[in-house]
């Protein structure tokens, strides 16, 4: 589903050049759950942002379902993201000015989903996340765990084929963290491909494959018996 060839990312400032990713070659199959681990600053989030076409690689290629997408125009990238990719971030990235309902509705608005269908989908997903009773609340009125549930709801409301999760439990207590991990596992079992960046060995255990990144290099990969 997702493949990279010799992915390199170099951050340049006036005086310093930092290589964040070094010839990263990945091949992620449809329906796989992959965890990317490594110490802070090793390039995990950079890799995830590039895989999600939120950032550009300095060189190398990215294939989404065998189509080379790294050279896509911004317009086509956005189109691809909207239709296929759901993002979950450590800091939730909800829009504070929008209610829970409106936050979850947003990706459907971008996809021009008709109003009746939109309402049905939003309510279903909120109900499933057990957050429907908070639909009129604003993010700041929710706990961290509730905010992340809303963020996951927003990520899955369009039925994306791929979910990219950056430290999804990083800001959560263990109970809410486990809920989010169970949710991601369940979505994966339903067929969604998941790529998750994490510091937590416990969370990584839910994945089929764990990739260890260090200084921008893939150091090792371990495949779990499923």
């Amino acid at each position, binding site marked *: 589903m997702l493949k990279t060839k010799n992915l390199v990312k170099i951050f340049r400032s006036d005086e310093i050049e930092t290589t964040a990713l070094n010839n990263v070659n990945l091949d992620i199959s449809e329906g796989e759950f992959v965890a990317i681990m490594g110490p802070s600053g090793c390039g995990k989030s950079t890799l995830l942002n590039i895989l999600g076409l939120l950032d550009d690689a300095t060189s190398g290629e990215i294939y989404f379902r065998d189509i080379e997408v790294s050279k896509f125009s911004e317009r086509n990238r956005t189109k691809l993201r909207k239709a296929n990719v759901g993002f979950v971030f450590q800091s939730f990235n909800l829009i504070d000015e929008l209610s829970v309902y409106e936050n979850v509705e947003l990706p459907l608005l971008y996809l021009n989903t008709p109003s009746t269908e939109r309402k049905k989908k939003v309510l279903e997903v909120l109900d499933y996340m057990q957050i429907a009773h908070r639909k009129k609340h604003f993010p700041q009125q929710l706990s961290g765990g509730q905010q992340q549930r809303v963020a996951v709801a927003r990520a899955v409301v369009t039925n994306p084929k791929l979910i990219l999760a950056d430290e999804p439990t990083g800001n959560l207590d263990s*109970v809410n963290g486990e809920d989010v991990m169970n949710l991601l596992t369940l979505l994966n079992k339903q067929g969604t491909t998941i790529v998750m960046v994490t510091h937590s060995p416990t969370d990584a255990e839910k994945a089929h494959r764990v990739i260890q990144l260090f200084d921008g290099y893939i150091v090792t990969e371990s495949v779990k018996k499923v």
Partner: protein
Amino acid sequence: MLGFELIKSSKTCYSIYKTRSMREVTIPLPLVKENEQVEIQVNVGKKRKIEHYKIDSFQWECEDELSRGNDATSISLARISRLKKLIESYDKSWELIQIFAPLENSEFIRVLYRKKE
């Protein structure tokens, strides 16, 4: 089809929210020396589980192995290449759990392993 209806109809999702449990317990440990093993025994109800962990230290300094110059890229390449080899050739009865970032100017890099069941 990746459908929300599909997920919603799954009976498991409700049980998932109901069966909440502690995910992690943090245990402060005294400094573990090189190649010393940590044995952790957990009793949950009548079930007993024993886990073995080991922190290993690999050489991180690599001046002797630099063949293409001593710029940052060459040093990084030499280090990563050696780390990869050491991990690949490690005792297969242990699984790698985590690589810790070495401190600045440290000679060793520490890697956490867990004994396979």
